[in-house]
């Protein structure tokens, strides 16, 4: 039962107020893309033990989607940030690197 702070409204929402949306920072591939690109976009999902970036929607609150970085093993939450971005904020990456020196990066 996670608690994630919604960066859009500031509420510390518990898991039952949220809806999960899978891996964050996927790049959409539409018509014209190769089978490999489309397959990667549609089906190839990371499942790391450790740092992971996810999409969540504050479904029972402000209704906004946001992104969260957390450790799938310890459930430590490194931060949440608005969904309108294609990559995690630099200061969040720095924070995670400080806490997890062995982390290989988000891509």
């Amino acid at each position: 039962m996670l608690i994630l702070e919604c960066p859009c409204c500031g509420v510390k929402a518990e898991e039952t107020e949220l809806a999960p949306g899978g891996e964050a920072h996927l790049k959409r591939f539409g018509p014209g893309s190769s089978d490999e690109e489309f397959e990667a976009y549609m089906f190839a999902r990371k499942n790391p033990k450790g740092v992971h970036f996810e999409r969540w929607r504050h479904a029972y609150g402000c209704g906004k989607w946001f992104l969260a970085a957390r450790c799938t093993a310890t459930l430590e939450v490194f931060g949440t940030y608005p969904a309108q971005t294609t990559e995690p904020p630099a200061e969040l990456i720095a924070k995670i690197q400080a806490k997890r020196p062995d982390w290989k990066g988000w891509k």
Partner: protein
Amino acid sequence: MSARLQRGGRLINRSAQIEFTFNGKTMKGLKGDTLASGLLANDQLLVGRSFKYHRPRGIVASGPEEPNALVGLGEGARFEPNQRVTTTELFDGLTSASQNHWPSLEFDIGALNNRLSRFLPAGFYYKTFIHPRSAWKHLFEPIIRRSAGLGKSPEQADADRYEYTYGHCQILIAGGGIAGLQAALVAGAAGANVLLLEQTAHWGGRAPVDGDIIDGKPAEDWISATLQTLAGMENVTLRNRMMVSGVYDHGYVLAEERIADHTPGDGRPRKRLWRIRAEKIIAATGALERPLSFAGNDIPGVMLASATRDYAVNFAVSPGDHTVVVTNNDDAYRTAITLKDYGLEVTVVDVRQAPTGELPSRARAMGIRIETGRGIVKVKGCKRVTGVTIGLQAGEGGAVEEIACDAVAMSGGWSPVVHLWSHCGGKLIWDETRALFRPDADRPPLTHDGSAMVYPAGAANGALSAAAGLADAAAQAVLTLQSLGKEAGLTQAAQADAVEEEAMLPVWIMPASAGPELKSKMWLDFQNDVKVSDVQLAAREGYVSVEHTKRYTTLGMATDQGKLSNINGLAVLADALGEEIPRVGTTTFRPPYTPVTLGALAGEARGDIFQPLRKTPMHDWHLAQGAYMEPVGLWQRPYTYPRHGETHEQAVNREVINTRERLGLLDASTLGKIIVKGPDAGKFLDMLYTNMMSNLGIGKCRYGLMCNEQGFLSDDGVVIRIDEDTWLCHTTSGGADRIHGWMEDWLQCEWWDWQVFTANVTEQYGQIAVVGPNGRKLLEKLGGMDVSKEALPFMTFKDGELGGFPVRVHRISFSGELSYEIAVPASHALAFWERLYEAGQEFGLQPYGTEGLHVLRAEKGFIMIGDETDGTVIPQDLNLDWAISKKKEDFLGKRGQQRTYLAAKDRWKLVGFESIDGTVIPDGAYVIAPGTNEYGFRNAQGRITSTYYSPTLKKGIAMGLLKNGPARMGEVVEFTSMTGGVSVSAKVVDPVFYDKDGEKQNV
């Protein structure tokens, strides 16, 4: 015999006598008793039969760790099985009955298993009931089911009510013993928001029973003074009768509050499940005493030494006239001293050679006989203890002496209650000298910011004595405060008088070199009937993992969850494997700590509020008309409106015919309605729908399809354009929230620079379909809007008034008939519906339900999301290519549909089927293809997606998917039947069965 003592009993009120029954026998107890102390006061030692061997069993413990004394409590609608007598507060009129026996507790046929126990070792079920396979279902399973299982299920609906409560605090302290109270003092004084929970009705835990002296006062006085101090702190909340059952991620804690268990029927909820969010948790959960493993350690009358003491001090109940205390540590001498103080006879059997600690010395001085270097070889008796034989602990079991006694109090040392620490991953370390696992402070369970979530305090942290426990609790509370960035003002713990205790001597088998005969009567897990010999057998058979051994032998399963059996079991396993105990490790501690009543888990979700039933504004009208309702998602919709004597089928046929020939009225309010507005709304809808929406004319309607990115059809509905930058999208009844969420997802996460707003206005309107050739006449009678073909042509809409109601009228049809779908504000919808109903009588108006709607649309070959689609169907499969734009470069699902498999020419495609004999083809039936597949099943080449009796055409009609279907018109194919065997033949036909040219809807 066990009996009530003439004096003492700190928790009972001797002037308040109450009556209760056990197996129909009336007994007398006192206010303040537990059911356990009440039974013991009546010399009821035998309280149940064991799970597997049906051995006679008595009360072993005095708390939630009790493995044996589980009873059925209450009767009828208040019956609950598997209740521990040790945690059940006695009340006047309580009824209880023992479990696991037939025909009676005293004489049980299942006890034959006991005689056969050497043939029923660990893994017996797995080994024996494998072959023949066919015997499992009809022979083995019914027999095992009758003889196995704990307790009986209640047969009536629960008469009580339950509820949830959400709690919030900074520090949750689990356990109201002296450690918990001390921690609360420190945390409370620092101003933290504290919630202190105690599972029993009493505060202070074991300290008063153990006779501890705190700050120079008897423990009891310190406890009441501390409670008073805490009560004066606004930031501290104390609640008892609340069992913390589990600790979960990010400080989520479940606790069960027993409100009216001891006052049944007083109008209060029986139990309340607390869902608490705590920033930090202090686990002051104490410790549990371990049994010793000697032959016959399960015979009624053998109890934990601490429990024996509890019953004497708290309830003035003696377990027997002569008690043999068998121990490997000093603590059990407290029991000997207590019993001696009451004037009862005691003998101590201590495995240690020369115990000289403070407590043994005191006992010796009191004249208590102490046998050292010895253990119990065997307990005598069957349904109650009649004596013990003792012998050298170091030996094989040669008896030295037989001692006549009627009670045995055993102590194998103490195990901290580490459950709450462990639930979320806290790790343990093995404390060699005291032979116990305790929390490893370096590896705590973590919370959201990566810091420690749980702090163990007092005995739960291995600080077993009062003095050490208080000091540890204060220190842990200071650490907890620091982790919250708070400074502790009070850091000094209360001082308990230290009692010097000598080291215990770990003893896992008594006597140490006992042979098989004795070991097969040494119980490790009383509840699951697991013996020393079972664990040793498992080791011999190759089980090296403690987790596997647990499942194989059932050690520590069910309600025990490792409370009593854990350490003894794994010590025996470690010994058998020749391993160190910490290398074998413990099994995983999982919630709940003790079982939670199912009613409490269900909370308020019963009866009318079991789940949210969504109702349209006309809901009550439908019910008043006798409608048969069906669930559509969470919506309740009329399926049909049967008239007197009509079957549902007859009613549906009547409704369909009436709609085709005269006039039908449908409550379509559940249709999703989403407003999409903005300069980029057209562009957005072009991405969402497979067809073009940006070029829809204002005032016009267009049917559209939505696909997911894989290309599969996910929803459909009519889109209307209200003004230059506003569209209204109708979705399926079940799809409104999903599609609204889908839109917001793309707008927020992919195209966030597009200027589009959406609003889900589904429930703002009642939507009423006026369907049938007389529809126009009815609306004209109401007046207020020109609804002629010229003013309001097919696939257009108009805002205005009808009969004085503000309406939006859509000329759309899901039935093939002349049809108006009218949206009216929900607050007026019922009045408008009634008006239509009344005014429509002269035109033959009848309401119709969802089944009629389905038949009408199937006759027309209209697809239904969820019938013709199942998440693997693309629009092209349904011959909907006309609704897929070729011009658009991109829309959601376009790339997915280009995948080889989906673009293949021979996919299963939509066709109609007419059975040769006119019957209705079974729903879901498959079209048979020649041959079988790799699993030996018949090959299939298609399936039915919708199938109905058409009252219009007076025959069965069906739609379905068929390989290459549209190219196979006129072919006769064969169907499987769902019940197997019987097949139906049908002709492949056009899925539009009625009014192929669509003339009737466009009038």
